């Protein structure tokens, strides 16, 4: 049988040297942004019961999950998402905690992607969850944290706002079946105007239908709010619009200015998100680098109903962006190589320790002779060789 002992599974990769530096730097910047705003870290197990990610609640299809069974035949998955395990954790272990609960995570998620498409199955993510708080103050708190965290790694991004309430409200006004609703949702999600028109043409032409037709086209800046006002079929939709407008202005005032955009046709995993949805894009990266929103119904699934909002940042994407900008280089050679002459190896180790305590990066030579040690230092570009014998001599190479 052919052995796969020299390769990594498809959709995974090793990180080396500057890649690790870049990844750690991104993680540090994000987590310290979260920490300084009062969020505390939690880590959940990589293995969870499948039931935690029930596709009806999570919007994650079973095909995407890496599955296995435990000793008793119960279905286990490698976490495809961090929010659901955290909801489980809050519902079971932080029931009596003072609300709101501010948590952050920094851990990979696993999704089985179609092969050979260049997507990673193991994806590092970091994000926050604010649980037990609703209203505009909570929404803005999370949005500002998102902006601050992203700015620390990737200053040039566009934050996009949407609201799950539009599609929900528009769809409620239409005489459609559950399947037709899903077809319409998909057409809006992919901005497939042709398909959307085909479905809507078969319905009686009401204000809600023409509104639905416009929904995927309603994205951009301030002008969107005016356009949307004309197609909102109900009072509830208008209220949602005015709420979003308020959030939009607040985020602009926070210093993002023209970097905030809106898309009323943002309907991803629509039944998971209940209200505000937001995402972020940056030039030169074809996918969103942040995704979040309010999910007020999720905690009830874990028998602990409370409002909640959060977001996740694609750490892998930010790492790749940082590397492509050349912000991180291969780590430089050590500053000093310490070689102990025969009989002085313990003294050499002590000397090296003294140097590292001074803050120097220092290797101890494992060569048998001084010539070998010197050749090694030269080949790596180490500029200083400390030869430890009866006395210590410093040689500059």
């Amino acid at each position, binding site marked *: 049988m052919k052995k796969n002992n020299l390769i990594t599974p498809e959709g995974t990769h090793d990180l080396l040297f500057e890649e690790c530096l870049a990844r750690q730097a991104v993680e540090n910047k994000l987590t310290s942004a979260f920490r300084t705003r009062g969020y505390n870290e939690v880590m959940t197990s990589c293995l969870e019961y499948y039931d935690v990610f029930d596709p009806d609640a999570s919007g994650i299809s079973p095909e995407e999950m890496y599955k296995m069974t435990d000793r008793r035949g119960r279905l286990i998955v490698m976490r495809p998402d961090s929010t659901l395990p955290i909801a489980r954790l809050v519902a079971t272990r932080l029931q009596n905690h003072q609300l709101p609960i501010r948590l952050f995570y920094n851990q990979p998620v696993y999704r089985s992607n179609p092969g050979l498409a260049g997507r990673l199955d193991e994806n590092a993510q970091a994000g926050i969850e604010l649980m037990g708080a609703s209203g505009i103050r909570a929404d803005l708190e999370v949005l500002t944290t998102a902006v601050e965290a992203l700015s620390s790694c990737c200053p040039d991004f566009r934050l996009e706002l949407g609201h799950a309430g539009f599609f929900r409200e528009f769809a409620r006004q239409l005489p459609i079946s559950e399947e037709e609703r899903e077809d319409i949702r998909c057409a809006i999600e*992919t901005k497939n105007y*042709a398909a959307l028109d085909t479905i809507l043409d078969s319905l009686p032409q009401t204000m809600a239908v023409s509104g639905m037709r416009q929904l995927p086209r309603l994205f951009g800046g301030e002008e969107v709010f005016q356009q949307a006002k004309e197609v909102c079929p109900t009072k509830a939709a208008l209220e949602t619009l005015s709420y979003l407008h308020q959030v939009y202005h607040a985020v602009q005032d926070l210093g993002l200015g023209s970097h905030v955009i809106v898309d009323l046709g943002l309907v991803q995993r629509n039944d998971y998100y209940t209200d505000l949805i937001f995402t972020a894009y940056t030039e030169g990266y074809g996918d969103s680098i942040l995704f979040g929103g309010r999910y007020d119904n999720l905690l009830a699934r874990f028998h602990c109903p409370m409002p909640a909002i959060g977001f996740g940042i694609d750490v892998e994407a930010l790492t790749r962006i940082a590397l492509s900008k050349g912000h991180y280089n291969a780590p430089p050679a050590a500053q000093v190589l310490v070689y102990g002459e025969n009989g002085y190896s313990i003294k050499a180790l002590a000397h090296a320790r003294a140097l590292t305590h001074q803050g120097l990066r220092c290797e101890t030579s494992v060569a048998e002779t001084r010539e070998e040690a010197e050749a090694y230092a030269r080949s790596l570009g180490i500029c200083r060789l400390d030869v430890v014998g009866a006395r210590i001599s410093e040689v500059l190479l």
Partner: protein
Amino acid sequence: MKPLRIALTKGRLEDDTVALLEKVGMNCDNVHNKGRKLILPIGDGSIEVVLAKAADVITYVEHGVCDLGVVGKDTILEHGGSFYELLDLGFGKCRFALAGPTGRNFFTGYHTKVIASKYPNVARSYFEGKAMDVQIIKIEGSVELAPLLGLADAIVDIVETGTTLKENGLAVIDTICHISARLIANEASLKLRKVEIECLAARMEQAKEEAQ
């Protein structure tokens, strides 16, 4: 400003798209005299054309290395992916159909039918929709051969005029869906370069409607 990069499916869709772009008023001489070049600036240089195989158009757009793409609905259905499907360009029209030997009723009998296709995903989702268990065999070349040789009961393939089917003693059993060329866009590109992309799409749509 970086030029807007549009990937075209090589061959007939490329010719039709170039004709449409010329109607919009863009100089496409570089595409006509492409030589061995793979990235070709057109118009005033604000747009670059990339020529690729159909499935690669989707891949390039999905990853955002091309902002836009022109690709057949057949490839979209078979290949899938996440991107925006902005416009039905109205050319490259044909249909996906289930076809089998003339005069034989495909739906009778209880044995599991064998289906040959170049488009296994399209075939699978069609039969799943009908709650029919079938065995799908992927064929790379002329699919019409499979029922003739006795390998398959029927085929799922693209049908334009039906002449090839007829010549081989096959007939359409059911139309699965209609196909035409689509303008697709990368999600981030559409958000970050909304005005340019919408303007180009609107001009293309207008030119398409004038042609009809």
